[in-house]
């Protein structure tokens, strides 16, 4: 102690320690913490007043966490939402993951998703513009959310419900008392701070909160030990969309478009709207992209996966669903490997962009206009909760009394295509039970999104954004319900919550 107080300025540190803040900061009508400022760095825990306290603390502001926070608050809980970056939406906004994949299950859109879609529509960026049905593209979840509006709409939803968002805050620890989480510790601009709550929801994607409190976890494929490959997505601007469309349809004859989508594109171009244009590396176009490899413009890794989508509201911009960093070389669960993947991916991105500019008609004046600010992680850690989802649940289209949502998205493993996982036939779907979101170890923890309880194969299906949103929505409702009924979160019977209050009711 003496050492720290022997330096003249540390009086300030002491004042902050006892919650007084520095002299300057307390003056004026500044918008500051209602309670104490965050701790001096290096200090946390019992000696400090909490930075924030709430009924429900949600960690991670991605697809699942934001849904959980908004839904818990709508049911009357006081909610804090901790986000590492400065926008909500996670992969959809920071990761450039666009558009949402379809669930291939009719009726999968839970009320939160419907509400979100309506709100985007009101912003003038309809998520459904030119979205068509086909035998290969159907079901719920097929929304196209413009990233720059999604972050705005999420914030409005939080603001309406009084959700306190703590931005730029990274989870670095948690405190437990018996089988309960009492607080989580976050790193903020000011230092470490403590957020106390009655219920915690882990929407970190990496099961980070769960791992901090000792929940058993798994990572990667049971067979290979490898995680799903990561992507480092980006957007390109300056694209002539009509030329791109005609290049792929007329010159490469990609055969991808249906007559209906063809007509919509022609109509959109006529009206001066952004048509929905997509191109992919597929059977018909493989030769074109392979040409880049034989000419030395691309590497074999670069062409494993190539896909691009136009974005409504960003007329000359396409969202690139690539590069995909080789799964054999990089791991989403190893800090050093992950870091190397970033630089490796950035080089892949530059080669792909240069190839597009040189070879795709319509890309002559294109440029990279935005890099993702987070890596596209499909899978990292998954918890082992009360129920463990497996490939069987998908293959046999299992239904559960305590189901929180449905999906039929295929078991989509990018690393190795495993043929044994057949796609469900149209009309079939499986459900995700509430028990896959709770654990035996912690009575007040819910885990949502891609890190919910499931095997590598099961997760390869339930990891998509609309399903993550529905899980989050249910978790928020359950958290508020448990608090109002004094039921431990991991003891809640979802099916016993009145139907009118549930976001999803199994038929």
């Amino acid at each position: 102690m003496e050492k720290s107080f022997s330096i003249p300025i540390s009086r300030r540190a002491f004042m902050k320690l006892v919650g007084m803040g520095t002299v300057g900061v307390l003056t004026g009508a500044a918008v500051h913490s209602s309670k104490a400022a965050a701790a001096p760095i290096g200090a946390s825990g019992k000696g400090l007043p909490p930075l924030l306290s709430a009924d429900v603390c949600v960690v991670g502001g991605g697809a699942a966490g934001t849904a959980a926070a908004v839904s818990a608050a709508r049911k009357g809980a006081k909610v804090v939402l901790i986000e590492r970056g400065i926008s909500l939406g996670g992969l959809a906004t920071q990761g450039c993951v666009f558009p949402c994949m379809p669930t291939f299950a009719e009726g999968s859109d839970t009320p939160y998703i419907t509400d979100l879609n309506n709100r985007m529509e009101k912003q003038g960026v309809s998520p459904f513009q030119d979205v068509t049905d086909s035998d290969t593209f159907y079901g719920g979840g097929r929304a196209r959310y413009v990233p720059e509006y999604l972050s705005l709409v999420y914030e409005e939803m939080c603001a309406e419900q009084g959700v306190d968002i703590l931005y730029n805050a990274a989870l670095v620890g948690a405190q437990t008392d018996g089988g309960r989480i009492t607080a989580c510790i976050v790193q903020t601009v000011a230092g470490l701070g403590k957020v106390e709550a009655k219920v915690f929801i882990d929407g970190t994607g990496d099961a980070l909160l769960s791992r901090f409190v000792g929940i058993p976890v798994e990572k990667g494929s049971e067979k290979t030990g490898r995680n799903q490959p990561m992507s480092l997505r980006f957007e390109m601007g300056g694209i002539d969309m009509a030329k791109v469309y005609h290049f792929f349809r007329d010159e490469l004859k990609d055969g991808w478009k249906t007559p209906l989508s063809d007509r919509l594109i022609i109509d959109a171009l006529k009206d001066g709207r952004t048509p929905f244009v997509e191109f992919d590396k597929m059977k018909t176009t493989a030769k074109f992209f392979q040409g880049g490899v034989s000419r030395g413009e691309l590497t074999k890794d670069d062409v494993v996966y190539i896909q691009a989508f136009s974005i409504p509201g960003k007329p000359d911009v396409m969202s690139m669903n690539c590069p995909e960093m080789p799964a054999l070389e990089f791991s989403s669960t190893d800090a050093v490997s992950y870091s190397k993947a970033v630089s490796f991916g950035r080089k892949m991105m530059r080669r792909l962009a240069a190839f597009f500019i040189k070879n795709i008609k319509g890309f002559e004046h294109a440029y990279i206009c935005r890099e993702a600010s987070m890596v596209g992680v499909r899978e990292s850690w998954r918890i082992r909760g009360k129920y463990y989802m497996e490939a069987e649940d998908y293959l046999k289209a299992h239904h559960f009394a305590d189901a929180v949502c449905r999906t039929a998205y295929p078991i989509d493993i990018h690393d190795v295509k495993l043929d044994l996982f057949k796609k469900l036939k149209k009309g079939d779907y499986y459900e995700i039970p509430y028990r896959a979101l709770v654990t035996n170890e912690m009575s007040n923890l819910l885990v949502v999104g891609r890190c919910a309880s499931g095997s590598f194969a099961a997760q390869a299906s339930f990891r998509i954004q609309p399903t993550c949103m529905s899980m989050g929505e249910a978790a928020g409702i359950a958290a508020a319900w448990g608090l109002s009924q004094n039921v431990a979160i991991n003891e809640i019977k979802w099916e016993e919550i009145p139907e009118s209050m549930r976001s999803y009711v199994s038929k």
Partner: protein
Amino acid sequence: MGKSFSIPISRRDFMKMAGMAAIGVLAEGAIGGTDTVSAAGSKAGTINYGGKEIPVLFSVDVCVAGGGPSGTAAAIMAARNGAKTVLIERGVALGGLAVLGCVYPFMDTHAPDSDTPYVAEVKARLRQHGIEPFDGVTQQTWHNPETLTLIYDEMCSEAGVNVLFQTVVVDTVVEGQKLTACIVQTIAGLAAIQAKTFIDSTGDAYLSRSAGVPYERGYEKTGNNQPLSFRFEMGGIDVGRLYQHVAVELQEDWCKSKPPYFEIAEAMHRKQRYKLEDLMAKGVASGEITQEEAEYMQAYTIIGKNGVMSMNCPEIPVKFSATDPVSYSKAVAYGRRMMHNIASYLIAHLPGFEKAFISREAAMLGARESWRIRGKHYLVEDDYHSQSRFADAVCRTAWFIDAHGEKVSEKLPKGGYYEIPYGSLVTEEVENLIVAGRCISASFILQASMRIQPTCMSIGEAAGIAAAWGLKKHIAANAIAWDKIPPEKRSYVSK
């Protein structure tokens, strides 16, 4: 180790907690990774932190915290001078505000010959990538954020810097006057990085504050930090039409260069009157934008991104604080609303913006000033006005005192400049720590001049050289006399 626990009492509680927490992180499930690019090669065992063993991810000569303009420069220069170096970055791109914060272009130092070799090299590499940073008139550096971050990756890779992305500094371990390790949160969990010398380029003096270095924040008179900005980019702009309207029709002569190097601006708090103030004032009168939104609007074309402009706004009111986590969070949502209002207003009323759209939001807020250390030498406002020179100077600048909302000084006479001494980068308290970038030892008012990116780059460059030099010569970083390093090894020599 005992001593490191003796600073604030509650650190022990965190350590206890962190130790317990580490169980969850270390006890990975039954499925072991078979990562071919793993930390295994660089692992240096474990250290005891809070009663538990946490992995030492790296044990190196120099650890740089923060991959912005100064930190990236420091890491590259330390590595080039022979130090095994780790660079810790919170995001997934190097460049800090220039890349993640959309802060573009680099402002002009207004000082003659201020480019140190590293700054000149970054500009040369931009040219090699087809981005000409010189507009032919001013000394602003017009770059391209996506190219800049690629260049930084390349420079780090060539120099052998280990970059650790997506990693947050949590805590430090201090033994006596030495920082022995910093504790970081990686995707995998808590880990330690041991180093002989540490460089704090966090912008927020995070490492320094953690290690017990005294610090200040905000303006002494008001307690306010400089305002935050939440920058963004807009695409779909007809720059030719915009130029025609602003430069020809309105006869605004603010921008000295022509497209593709074109800029529009208005700042109601400045003495200078800008032609676009009328447009923004009309928006306030009609209720389409607020006075806060109209106060400051500036946009620059981005080289290599045709039709895209970097918006140097919104400027978030000073009632929001860059040093309070809750206030900072509220500033984000407040700023995003301002951003959309400004964008909508320009789309509706500014010729050339008819088909424009928000193409990108910054991934970090633009903090001009947050915390500043009190180091061995403390720079003050008078150093600017009297153009102070120092034998141990690491760079020069003459960017004016640009304290938004508090004080805007006159420019120094042409050819004038002041210097930044090495003494303002080091501290009395921690012998193996160098601080680089906007959080060096300077008063609020002086920092409002030295905070710009080229100056931060030059400071980082010197920090990296000094760190490697000190290790080679067995001199503590805070005891190095920069002026005793042979001139040919220095990035800057005071005349």
